[in-house]
């Protein structure tokens, strides 16, 4: 009996271990080894931290790095602010069929690929696009307006892409909040705002943190949306990595950039967890 359970356990854990070791751990070890070597001649390498040095010496790299982090945080916050009322409505106010329909509507955009979705936004926002035409037709502006290739366009795209990943954990945690608790707070003299602050948000905290972490990670590592909506000069850190690997064939520097990005996201996630007093088990469980 005991050996049987053991075999069952091994069988179940094997795919997970294979996945982790082959697809995540081994490539990362290899990447790390690549990042700490320096090319000194043709097919001649020596280990050094020169690649990381390059990163810190070049202001453009650091600037892009900081900019990517700030915009990702901002996108996460905007997503949260938009998703919270929507999730609250889906979880607490909508009933029965409406609830599932609304939830489905959040999912619908994800039935088409990210590239098609982003092209959709380009069609809306470009100079000859829908928004520009409507503005000209109503006479608000006299000539065509270019709304693509700026930070606002990037932000719109990022928030739009991330919405579902914020709504799902929020709806789940908000649904677990007993309606009676909200009523009790109201009954005891609470106003809408104070109930939100003292009852609803503390209860939803694990969902808020979980959603924010997922959205932040996705945004930070997003390549398509910033490139398409932000144009050539969008200065997203993943673009720099792409550039080093594919255009420059400088795998060493690209790998170092990759590790800097990993480090950055880890630090930010860790500090958010510390700041909100949440643990990873609590938010992901």
């Amino acid at each position: 009996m005991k050996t049987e359970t053991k075999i069952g356990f091994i069988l179940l854990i094997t795919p997970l271990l294979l996945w982790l070791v082959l697809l995540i751990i081994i490539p990362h070890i290899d990447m790390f080894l690549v990042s700490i070597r320096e090319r000194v001649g043709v097919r001649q390498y020596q280990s050094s931290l020169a690649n990381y040095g390059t990163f810190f010496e070049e202001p453009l790299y650091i600037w892009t790095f900081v900019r990517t982090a700030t915009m990702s945080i901002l996108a996460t916050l905007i997503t949260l602010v938009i998703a919270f009322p929507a999730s609250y409505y889906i979880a607490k106010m909508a009933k029965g069929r409406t609830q599932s329909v609304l939830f489905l509507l959040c999912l619908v955009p994800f039935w088409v690929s990210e590239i098609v979705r982003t092209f959709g936004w380009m069609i809306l926002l470009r100079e000859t696009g829908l928004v520009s035409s409507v503005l000209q037709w109503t006479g608000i502006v006299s000539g065509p307006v270019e709304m693509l290739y700026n930070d606002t366009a990037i932000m719109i795209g990022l928030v739009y892409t991330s919405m579902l990943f914020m709504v799902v954990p929020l709806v789940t945690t908000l649904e677990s909040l007993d309606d009676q608790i909200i009523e009790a707070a109201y009954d005891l003299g609470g106003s809408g705002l104070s109930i939100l602050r003292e009852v609803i948000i503390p209860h939803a905290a694990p969902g808020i943190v979980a959603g924010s972490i997922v959205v932040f990670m996705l945004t930070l590592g997003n390549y398509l949306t910033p490139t398409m909506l932000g144009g050539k000069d969008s200065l997203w850190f993943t673009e720099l990595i792409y550039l080093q690997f594919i255009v420059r064939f400088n795998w060493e520097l690209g790998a170092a950039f990759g590790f800097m990005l990993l480090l950055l996201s880890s630090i930010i996630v860790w500090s958010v967890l510390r700041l909100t007093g949440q643990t990873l088990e609590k938010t992901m469980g």
Partner: protein
Amino acid sequence: MTPDLECQHLIKRFGETQAVDDVSFSVPQGSFFSILGPSGCGKTTIMRMIAGFLEPSGGDILIRGKSVLDTPPNKRPVNMVFQHLALFPMMCVADNIGYGLRRQGMAKAEIARRVEEMLHRINLPGLGQRKINELSGGQKQRIAIARCMILNPDVLLLDEPLGALDLKLREHMKIELKALQSEFDTTFVYITHDQSEALVMSDQIAVMNTGRFEQVGSGQELYYNPQTAFVAGFVGESNRWIGRVERIEGREAQVLTENGLTIFSSSQGSSLMTGDQVEIFVRPEAIRLSKKAENLDDLRNRLSGKVVSVLFNGAASNILFQAEEELEPIEVALPQSGEMTNLARGAEVAIGWTTDQARCFKWTDG
């Protein structure tokens, strides 16, 4: 003196269904008022209208003589203990109790003092910093009441708060709730489907069925003197027969049941006529049980027969008695005075009851 709570012709409709149908009652200051009824009878709807979570379709609700229909729930001088208590799991005990005071904008030091005082009053001193999920069922119960009572409401509403507790604790909490009510001297309005909760604690009980109050009165009145068939059947245990009135003589009606049993019962002053379809209720504990038939000669209704089975349940033990094969068994309380302890299945016994113990109501087939 104006009553603490008064409902006048209260009506609530949900679409086609009439959940509360023209209910009027008033609860005097400092009393314990219960609304007793089966689930779905509309009692929770009344409670939610008083608390302000539902708007009545008609009628008025007055608290201390003033209509509160235009007052939102967070401004009403009424607080509610919810069915699942609804304590705030994200706050400690002290923050739970102090929540209402914080919302009133009271100074922190004053809140802390009052919360401490309240914890002493409910016999849980020093538990202020505990988390809610570290408390036992009975402690949570007391916290939920304290959280409301600290606001000094005119009326405290309790929505079946004992439902989630196990039997032993529920028995204990009944006594404790009553004690808390007299200590705080606040009007309690308690809704339940459990008649024993209502009977033990209440000064006044309203028995509710399908949106209407069937009868309002003290526990004794409801038990000894039910005014409608529903109350007779719902409050306490009863044997029930359906039959036809054969003869009326003064206050006594002679009824022949469907199975051919003749029962003499009191007609309750209701206007029964010969030939009317009636329901008859006889409580198991109102039936006398004897091993010798001649001991029961003074009783108007007498039957001899066999014990079909003994339903032993300690003090609340009953036997099932059957006079003849075709008659349905009658439940009879087993006296605990000693002489009946060895009664077993198949034993020959006699039972009997007086005319007044058999209550007879006109049967309106629903």
